[in-house]
């Protein structure tokens, strides 16, 4: 299947500063892709090149299987990080304007606005002025604005910023639904918990360079399964000095273990069962946050 987005060795610098350096990734259809990185890593610059706001200095961007053309943007929905609505206009007028600019007729725009407003439970807010809305509410409106023209690719910069858990859940359900409908979704964030729950694959960038990318499960597998927790009865001393173990935290009936690289956790289980009564044995996935911190903090400055 043709990837919805392909970035090929894309580079962009502003003056002497290289914002994006030799970055490549692709996003297949029906896929949620997380673009991660600390502040100033080049996330926004990357997004801007993807949606044609700026052109890359070198490398190429392909959307829907073709080299970038403005026409392709009709199939892209974009949610910027902050605001992005006319404050003195009503929600409805804002949405109709953006819908029309995206190529919809007034009637179609209104129809879709009504449908989305009902779905997101904001029908009462359509005639209110944007500056009367809370930040979270504005975020929902912008979310609608990005989806109004039924885009095949949805690009979102920090979509959950400012939303309460209930609204977060609502939008997450919408995104999952969109993925099921075959849409590609890219969102940039530094909130790892959301990425872990939603993303199929990620690209972690730092200082414009890709540090880590691939499917979430592959990344986790590659980065470890090296953490083990054991609840036990008996003398935990038999674990000490085990050649499989890199570090050990023994609490008397609970131990947290980091395995040496390449060590097999099943081997450890067998060893433990010989000396202890094992109540619980769990191989922990490293959290994405842990990987993120390891990768970014471990860089040589």
């Amino acid at each position, binding site marked *: 299947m043709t990837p919805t987005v392909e970035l090929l060795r894309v580079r962009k610098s502003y003056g002497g500063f290289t914002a994006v350096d030799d970055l490549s990734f692709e996003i297949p259809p029906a896929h949620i892709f997380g673009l991660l990185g600390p502040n100033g890593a080049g996330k926004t610059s990357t997004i801007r090149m993807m949606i*044609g706001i*700026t052109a890359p200095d070198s490398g190429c961007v392909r959307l829907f299987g073709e080299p970038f053309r403005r026409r392709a943007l009709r199939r892209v929905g974009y949610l910027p990080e*902050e*605001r992005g*609505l006319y404050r003195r206009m009503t929600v409805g*007028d804002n949405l109709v304007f953006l819908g029309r600019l995206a190529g919809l007729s007034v009637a179609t725009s209104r129809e879709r606005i009504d449908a989305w407003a009902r779905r997101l439970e904001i029908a009462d807010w359509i005639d209110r002025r944007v500056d009367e809305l809370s930040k979270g509410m504005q975020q929902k409106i912008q979310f609608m604005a990005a989806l109004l023209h039924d885009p095949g690719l949805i690009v979102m910069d920090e979509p959950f910023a400012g939303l309460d858990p209930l609204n977060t859940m609502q939008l997450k359900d919408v995104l999952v639904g969109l993925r099921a409908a075959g849409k590609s979704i890219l969102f940039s964030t530094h909130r790892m918990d959301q990425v872990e729950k939603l993303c199929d694959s990620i690209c972690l960038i730092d200082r414009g360079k890709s540090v880590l990318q691939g499917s979430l499960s592959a990344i986790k597998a590659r980065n470890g399964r090296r953490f083990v927790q054991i609840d036990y009865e008996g003398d935990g001393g038999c674990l000490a000095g085990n050649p499989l173990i890199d570090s050990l935290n023994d609490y008397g009936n609970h131990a947290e273990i980091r395995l040496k690289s390449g060590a097999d956790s099943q081997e450890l289980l067998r060893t433990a069962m010989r000396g202890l009564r094992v109540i619980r044995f769990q191989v922990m996935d490293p959290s994405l946050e842990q990987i993120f911190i390891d990768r970014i903090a471990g860089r040589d400055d």
Partner: protein
Amino acid sequence: MTEFSIHKVWIVAKREYLERVRTRSFILSTFATPLLMGSFLILPALISASAARGIVRDSERPARVVIASDNRALAELVSGELMRQRGTRYEPSVVSPAAPAEHEQLDRQLDAGDIEGYVWLDGPARASRHVVFATGRMGDFILQRRLGDALSYAFAADRMVKQGSSAGDVAATLQPVDLTAVRAGKSSSMYNAVRGAAVVLLLMFVMLFSLLSYGVMVMRSVMEEKHSRITEVLLCAASAQELMTGKILGTGSVGLTQIAVWFTIAAFGASRSLYLRTAMTALDVGPSLIVYFVVFYILGYLLYSAIFAGVGAIFNSIDEAQQWNFVIILPLIAASAMILPVATASDSAIAVVVSLFPFCSPILMFERLAVHDPPLWQLALSLLLLVATIGAAMFISGRIYRTGILMYGKRPTIRELSRWLRHA
């Protein structure tokens, strides 16, 4: 990225237009300005007219003026001439001979308000032709001017009589000349200098004010979109050129709407007010002048709004842009300073040059067209230069705009700006 969709320009312009036209400040300035202007125009006329009719006189009685002189014949001539003046009622009386005691008596009467003023025409005053009018009504310029006229008349007549002229001779010689100015080439329309100039000034003020306020409005609007990051969403659906064009056209249409309303109100006022009608016919404010106004207004607006759009894209706040604003409006200030010189010497070399200079020509070439027909080649050249400058301004601003609207934070240096220009 070269496609340019008129449809998108239209959508952007329409939004811009509707948002601005619905604001309270637009409605207020559109309808309050003509009211204010009208009252500025009409009130002085009303006041002087009613003063002439004696309505605002404290007691509606004629102004009593005493002419005191040893020369009774002269005093009678002054008095007679004052009585002859049209429109106003004066009640001159003559005191002759004029002893020093009379002087004190007159001062007392003046203090008591029994008379409005007196002139003391003694020998030295007659010899030097320098006469003092003692009055409690310093502000009554009409009385002072008429009294001055009457005195000049009386001095001349007195002299002629002494030289042996007959009364009829005197009257015929001193009969005032009635001057009527007629606009060259348009003999049918009477040109009244004062009233005509007022209308031209008014039109130029409207143009200046409108160019400035709508230019700044474009700048603010660009900054607002930049600030709220709406630009990023918009750029996903439309190109920077489409956005800038739409914004300039939309805001400009608001200005044109306002001016159309003002013209309509003025036309309505003219149909009701004799004063406005004479002022307009005096200056031939006919269709051609309005066409000139609209053409130069549109061109001037395109030039200045293009520049303001570029400046709006460079800066992040109005405060930052303030200094540059001044540089932009400098030509407009210069043009307003040139309004009077150009009016008095419409064909002088300087007037020709400034009316060709594109940053001033919307105002000054329009002025020359209004007061006097300049040669056709000058009109054509000024239009050509103006259009060429608009093209250049649009090109430069367009390049700055499409980079600038995405740059936040630090203000760019001149070097960075030139880089935006070269490869945006």
